[in-house]
């Protein structure tokens, strides 16, 4: 059997008296699309934050490619190849789309100006940003140097997804990437997710949209009350059973295991 690319065991995260993660496990196989579903407040985002270095879990271990890792910051996780679109998007509202796309990975001008004076290659950065947005079908963005705060909610989400997709290397994590997107843009994100997988990069998709989940996921991780309840195969379970599991109306023993 193949080893998981990214594995977590017994993650615990408490915020004061609230327990967000209660000994949660997690497995992401190489090259798969793993959907994570669960009620509001089930701890899905907390799980993702622990995996991507945005929070440090109180207990538990995380293993990437067989090696145990512990990230003190999102940057360390990113450098290890985990790219994340957070539910809150993590964009700087007053800055331009281009500035937001790069965030610590800026392109410098070739030659002396770039090397010694750190001068940014604004042209190249704008071109790159525009290309990435077009790939996602975000054609309604008129000005690539527009401040992010002047974009619609869905356009902002598109920018955040484009950023992760542009740089993602080992794992791409998307926390509700289509929640605010239109029909066309959601379809583009789903296409993109499958495109990323076809290049061999695994994707973690958190979503409340069951048709989307069942369409693209290879496996579905059902999260409930801060832990992994079970993992199911979308081809052998109905949407209504998945929802029943997720909400506690049904127990995993009642369904044939994936």
């Amino acid at each position, binding site marked *: 059997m193949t080893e998981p690319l990214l594995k977590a065991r017994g993650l615990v995260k408490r915020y004061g008296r609230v327990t967000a993660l209660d000994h949660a496990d997690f497995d992401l196989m190489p090259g798969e699309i793993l959907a994570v579903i669960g009620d509001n407040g089930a701890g899905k985002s907390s799980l993702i934050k622990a995996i991507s270095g945005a929070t440090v879990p109180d207990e538990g271990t995380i293993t990437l490619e067989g090696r145990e890792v512990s990230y003190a910051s999102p940057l360390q996780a990113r450098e290890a190849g985990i790219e994340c679109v957070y539910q809150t998007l993590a*964009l*700087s509202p*007053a800055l331009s789309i281009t*500035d937001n796309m790069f965030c*610590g990975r800026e392109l410098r001008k070739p030659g002396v100006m770039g090397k010694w004076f750190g001068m*940014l290659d604004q042209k190249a950065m704008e071109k790159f940003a525009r290309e990435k947005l077009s790939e996602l079908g975000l054609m309604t963005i008129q000005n690539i140097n527009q401040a992010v705060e002047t974009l619609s909610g869905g356009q902002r989400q598109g920018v955040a997804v484009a950023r992760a997709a542009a740089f993602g290397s080992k794992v791409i994590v998307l926390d509700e990437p289509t929640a605010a997107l239109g*029909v066309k843009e959601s379809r583009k994100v*789903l296409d993109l997710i499958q*495109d990323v997988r076809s290049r061999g990069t695994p994707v973690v998709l958190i979503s409340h949209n069951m048709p989307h989940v069942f*369409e693209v996921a290879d496996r579905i991780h059902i999260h409930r009350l801060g832990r992994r309840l079970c993992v199911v195969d979308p081809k052998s379970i109905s949407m209504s059973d998945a929802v029943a599991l997720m909400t506690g109306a049904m127990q995993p023993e009642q369904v044939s295991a994936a």
Partner: protein
Amino acid sequence: MSESPTPGGQEYEASLKDSASAVAEFEHAPRGMIGTIQHVLHGNPTFVPVIILVASITVFGFIAGERFFSPFNLSLIMQQVSIIGILAAAQTLIILTAGIDLSVAAIMVLMSVISGKLAVEFGVPAPIAIVISFIGGIAAGYLNGWLVTKIKLPPFIATLGTWNVFFALNLYLSGAQSIRGADIDTTAPLLKFFGQSIAIGSARLTYGTLLMIAVFVALWYVLNKTAWGRHVYMIGDDKESAELAGIRTDRTLRQVYMLAGFICALAAWASIGRVGSISPQSFYEGNLESITAVVIGGISLFGGRGSIMGALFGALIVGVFQSGLRLAGVDVLWQVFAIGWLIIIAVAIDQWIRKVSA
């Protein structure tokens, strides 16, 4: 990226393959004059201080007449604002990160006392004394940055504390005594380097004035043309997002405070040339005056917005007001009164501009 929607798509998505693929463009409806002004100012926030500066120069030119417009007077204004201007550059860095630095002037005075004591009384060669004061400025900035990022103190509190600490140290080291200009001249004239000037006609541009301009140009470049500068804006805009997006926010913040400290030490050197002596009691209100310049310059106290050049114009506006009112024979009392209203009006205009949807 596949061109057409995947066959697995939902039924209602069938027409997506025919969707438009050009970047959207629109005709712009006329906005009316006020609307247009508001819009232009929104895109170029530095226009406001520039307009205020030009307007005040014009108005004071009429009130105070010839003397105000003379190259001598205009260069004198630059000279008079040079020290507060340099401090305002340091202050801008901190304010862009949504912080505030109450200690800038205290760092400056402390560093001028340190370099003066070393060079004039202990016979340390002047260049070494100056380098030590630079290191001291950076260390003082590091202390502020450390308190803000490691101890997690709000910048206001951290620098309120260090302001007092630095001021007390300065009184202790100097014994509350000034170092006389004549003593500096005989032992370490290099300390007064920035007091020298070049004459262009009747205008006298001091090296201190040129230093101020150089500091602003350099910082403008760093803030707008380098990755580090963009990160400074990001941190001020939304620190948590910047962290999630992969910026080393705390490290960058400490660097910002250290750079500000270094600029304060530069201001210290320039201030010796400007004042002609070293007085531990000087520039006591420099902290607030630097904040005034930044605010009049249209830089948001909430961080992440505004151009560093605004602070330069802000400092010049204050200088123009003071000079114009003085030449018009207005009492100092009313100069202070006018500056007070200037702050309020500048921020009110700023709020009005921000209301526009770009």
